[in-house]
């Protein structure tokens, strides 16, 4: 029997503030241990937290781009658990009055994954287990996080990954987080259960903690599906428990069961009064949001006529799409800039991380100049493409790289070049006349070679056909 997988995700995203959520220590990643710390973020007695405005604003923006309702009234609570990563033995979080509720992410297949809530909280410190001891570094402690809780609407590992990618894309575009999974600024817990197809109630779920790559999310879900399926098909009962995922074996193992279920003894944080937002503040944040990737992609396709696949590749990276817009500004066909970016430039800048950073040796203005030369008929597409490759290698502009004769289209006499090619390639010419259409390619090639790629290909083809039909 094929069981239906029911998945809900809790995603933690570090916000891109400069300072921590309750103190002025830096949020910079890494650093020597315990050097980004003060009495507040190490929970020293008598210290008092003061909420960072930017953290609240970023969280509201995240809520807005994920289609949530922003609650004008929300408050902070203490979530208690004793573990060395929390110096106060409680985490300041939000319980029953989160900042954002409702919301959704839409998948490619049109399905909506609903979002229950988004709340703000502080990150915990980092633990290093070494020889029976635990080394604790609180640099990360107090970095602002949002936790995005989805409804159990996800039905497969693929959907889970697509949902996370969409979150990553959207939150990056909104400028609220860099969402780098390898640095832990986006990580998630997966809740998963199985049920018979068509069943209306849910099965018993397990929670898999702290997955920090798309690959491990997919593999943990697949492993957990098999494990729960085997239990159910052998007549057993899935125990409600929290499990950990081992990236090396690709398997999950039990951490704690239901009898040790979380009991966080939430109560209101007495050191921070309620967060009250006005409609004006929320609307000002809404107005400050940039155009999101989905909207950009749609505009590229509908208004600029960019092919869907190219538009998606460009809109995926905020900096690439800004670059594309600058490079195609007032050019006759934005498709040219789009093609150059997704072909030549993407093969030169090939990793996800580098595309995200997008620091190409060719500025958008330089690419635009090249395209304008091409559109003015000074160079043809081939020369433009070759020049772009040289620009990428050397960092020089088209004007510096192109010789005067390359910039002189008058130097190309298509008719003469075609006559010469036919005369010098008699065999190919007669093959073509004899019906071998492919032979024309050799003649076009000869012309291009002779003109050093400057002859316009379409014109050459037409001219050759005409000459060959005459004789």
């Amino acid at each position: 029997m094929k069981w239906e997988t029911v998945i809900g995700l809790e995603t933690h995203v570090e916000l891109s503030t400069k300072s921590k959520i309750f103190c002025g220590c830096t949020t910079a990643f890494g650093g020597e241990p315990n050097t980004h710390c003060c009495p507040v973020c190490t929970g020293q007695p008598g210290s008092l937290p003061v909420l960072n405005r930017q953290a609240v604003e970023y969280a509201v923006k995240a809520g807005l781009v994920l289609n949530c309702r922003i609650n004008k009234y929300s408050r902070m609570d203490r979530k208690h658990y004793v573990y060395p990563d929390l110096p106060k033995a409680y985490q300041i979080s939000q319980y029953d009055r989160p900042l954002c509720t409702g919301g959704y992410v839409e998948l490619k297949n049109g399905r909506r994954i609903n979002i229950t809530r988004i709340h703000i909280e502080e990150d915990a410190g980092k633990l290093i287990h070494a020889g029976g001891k635990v080394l604790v570094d609180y640099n990360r402690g107090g970095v602002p996080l949002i936790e995005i809780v989805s409804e159990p609407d996800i039905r497969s590992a693929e959907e889970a990954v697509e949902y996370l990618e969409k979150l990553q894309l959207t939150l990056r575009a909104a400028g609220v987080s860099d969402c780098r999974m390898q640095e832990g600024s986006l990580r998630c817990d997966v809740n998963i259960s199985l049920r018979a197809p068509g069943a209306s109630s849910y099965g018993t779920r397990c929670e898999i903690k702290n997955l920090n790559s798309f690959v491990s999310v997919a593999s943990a879900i697949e492993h957990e599906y098999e494990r729960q399926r085997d239990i159910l098909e052998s007549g057993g009962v899935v125990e409600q428990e929290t499990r950990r995922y081992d990236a090396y074996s690709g398997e999950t193992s039990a951490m704690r069961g239901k009898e040790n279920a979380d009991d966080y003894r939430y109560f209101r944080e007495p050191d921070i009064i309620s967060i009250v937002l006005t409609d004006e503040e929320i609307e000002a944040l809404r107005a400050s949001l940039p155009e999101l990737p989905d909207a950009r992609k749609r505009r590229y396709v509908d208004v600029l006529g960019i092919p869907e696949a190219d538009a998606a590749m460009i809109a995926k990276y905020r900096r690439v799409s800004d670059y594309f817009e600058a490079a195609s500004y007032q050019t006759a066909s934005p498709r040219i800039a789009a093609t150059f970016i997704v072909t030549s430039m993407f093969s030169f800048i090939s990793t996800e991380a580098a595309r995200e950073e997008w620091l190409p040796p060719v500025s958008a203005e330089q690419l635009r100049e090249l395209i304008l030369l091409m559109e003015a008929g000074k160079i043809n597409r081939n020369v433009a493409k070759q020049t772009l490759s040289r620009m990428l290698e050397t960092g020089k502009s088209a004007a510096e790289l192109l010789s005067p004769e390359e910039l002189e289209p008058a130097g190309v006499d298509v008719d003469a070049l075609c006559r010469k090619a036919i005369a010098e390639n008699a065999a190919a010419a007669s093959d073509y006349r004899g019906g071998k259409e492919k032979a024309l390619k050799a003649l076009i090639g000869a012309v291009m070679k002779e003109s050093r790629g400057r002859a316009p290909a379409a014109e050459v083809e037409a001219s050759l056909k005409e000459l060959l039909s005459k004789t």
Partner: protein
Amino acid sequence: MVTHDEVRRIAALAKLYVSEEQLEEITGDLNGIIAFADAVASVDASGYDVEAEDGPAIRLRPDVTAASYEPELILKNAMESGDGFFVVRGRG
């Protein structure tokens, strides 16, 4: 009313050891606190909209970094430290 068992459970969650002698005293104290909270909760607050709290508005901090403390100061009160880390016992 909290029972001895509930107090033991809360103590376990907080990783606190409570002896049998202390149990009686702490249970009494906690019940006193709960009675106080019940007294507060018994006040008729209907008609009071918590969301329209008329108190002072929250003062939010601008997102500006400030110098952190020297790690020596941060670690000063640690039971054990080494190489800049707090050091705690691993789970048995």
